[in-house]
């Protein structure tokens, strides 16, 4: 059924292009896109651009996850501290992160660091909020049971707190990855000198729509792979729920 829907859309697209109903500058034919996709993949420019974007994302996510997980866990240790910080962080989260981009461009220049900063900022919030939530909702009876059986503090953390918090925390991590990716791509389309977003906007501006779509395909493919990977990690940690 899903394949049929995609087939209809793509079929319609190709027909539209061939009959001239679709303006080739806005929506080039699928065949042209396919050709350009092959070209940029062979030329290596697609890999290079994807590499830049991926590297920015990897660093941004690593920073956001480290900060978010540590801060989130620390805050979760006291109900009072949670009451103080959770609304503060949630409030900050509501501020559009993109507003910080001009500031980051000033601090870090137009290269990858400003995108990394943007990505880190964006990814941090869902991670820290879900980490707070995840560790706060660990069932007391699980902790009591482990303690009564002699669990040490590290054992309690790794064998009870982490597994119990995992479903909530992993959801936040996945969200952080997605939002970070979008922020970085977006930042690249606004001001950058490399990366998939940069190529996409450059191709648009040089009136090369087929090449632009080719890079969009690469970006979508990258997003799909990331999604599949994180989905797998989440599923492995939660397989006891659907046993």
């Amino acid at each position, binding site marked *: 059924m899903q394949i049929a829907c995609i087939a209809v859309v793509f079929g319609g697209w190709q027909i539209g292009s061939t009959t001239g109903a679709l303006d080739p500058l806005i929506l080039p034919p699928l065949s042209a896109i396919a050709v350009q996709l092959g070209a940029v993949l062979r030329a290596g420019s697609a890999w290079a651009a994807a590499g830049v974007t991926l590297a920015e994302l990897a660093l941004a996510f690593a920073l956001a996850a480290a900060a978010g997980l540590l801060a989130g866990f620390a805050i979760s240790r006291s109900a009072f501290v949670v009451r103080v910080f959770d609304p503060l962080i949630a409030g900050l989260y509501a501020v559009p992160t993109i507003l910080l981009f001009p500031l980051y461009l000033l601090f870090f220049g137009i290269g990858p660091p400003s995108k990394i900063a943007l990505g880190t900022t964006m990814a941090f919030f869902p991670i820290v909020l879900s980490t707070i939530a995840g560790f706060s909702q660990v069932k007391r*009876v*699980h902790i*009591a*049971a*482990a*303690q*009564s*059986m*002699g*669990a*040490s503090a590290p*054992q309690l953390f790794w*064998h*009870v707190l982490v*597994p*119990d918090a*995992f479903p909530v925390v992993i959801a936040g991590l996945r969200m952080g990855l997605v939002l970070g990716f979008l922020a970085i791509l977006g930042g690249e389309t606004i001001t950058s000198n490399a990366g998939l977003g940069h190529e996409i906007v450059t191709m648009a501006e040089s009136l090369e729509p087929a090449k632009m779509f080719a890079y969009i395909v690469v970006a979508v493919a990258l997003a799909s792979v990331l999604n599949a990977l994180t989905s797998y990690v989440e599923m492995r*940690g939660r397989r*006891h*729920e659907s*046993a």
Partner: protein
Amino acid sequence: MQGISIRGVSQAFGAAGDARRVVALEDATLDIPAGELVCLIGPSGCGKSSLLDIIAGLAKPVAGSVTIDGEPVRGPLPKRVGFVFQENALFPWLSVYDNIVAGLTFQGVPKDERRGRADEALAAVGLEAFRNHYPRQLSGGMKQRAQLARALSLQTEILLMDEPFAALDEQTRLVLGEDLSVQLAKTRKTIVFVTHSLVEAVFLADRIAVFTARPGRIKTILTVDEPHPRAPGFMTSAKLTGLRNALYELLHDEVRRAMETGAGV
């Protein structure tokens, strides 16, 4: 083995001087010799569960002390005391077998002994066929049996059980009670068992400590003179009925009183 000695234990929640301070337990004193099964019974909010937590070292009393085999309890004693909770305390992300192994790991049992002990415990409660099941896939009765297996595998001399069968239907409850009695006869553990069920208390206990409404004090101690393992026939005997009736008389007024003062009922 000297057993459990409870001396003048009191428990309260809320700061001193706070109008909302609740005194759950007042001046509980009781000696439980090794190998005895004692039931704690009383209206809700009378401090029975609090007392159990204190014996287990999971909570500190505001007054009094508990000694186990002569040593004062200052924290959990994983090698001496096992605990079975009312709510399901199995770790949902682990299978039944892994749950038991987790307990053994926490207690510090060497790796090569864990498998054997886990297998023994599973056999003792009859769950060998479900060793790889997750708690989600088990019925309430099976979950509690699994929790019992985990506690039994730790081979502690004392077992504390906080209304372990409360969430189960009466029939399952009675059958599990019989099994517990068999286990007790085999292992000679000291068991402290909190329950609301009159019949369960008489069927299982060597002695029954009856609590008053909050603040809970030990009102009376009934003795049930019947050897373990308790035969299923004991359930329908006149002796049990007589004791159950005596328990009812003792408790009825306390439960009424608890309802009137709004103490937890």
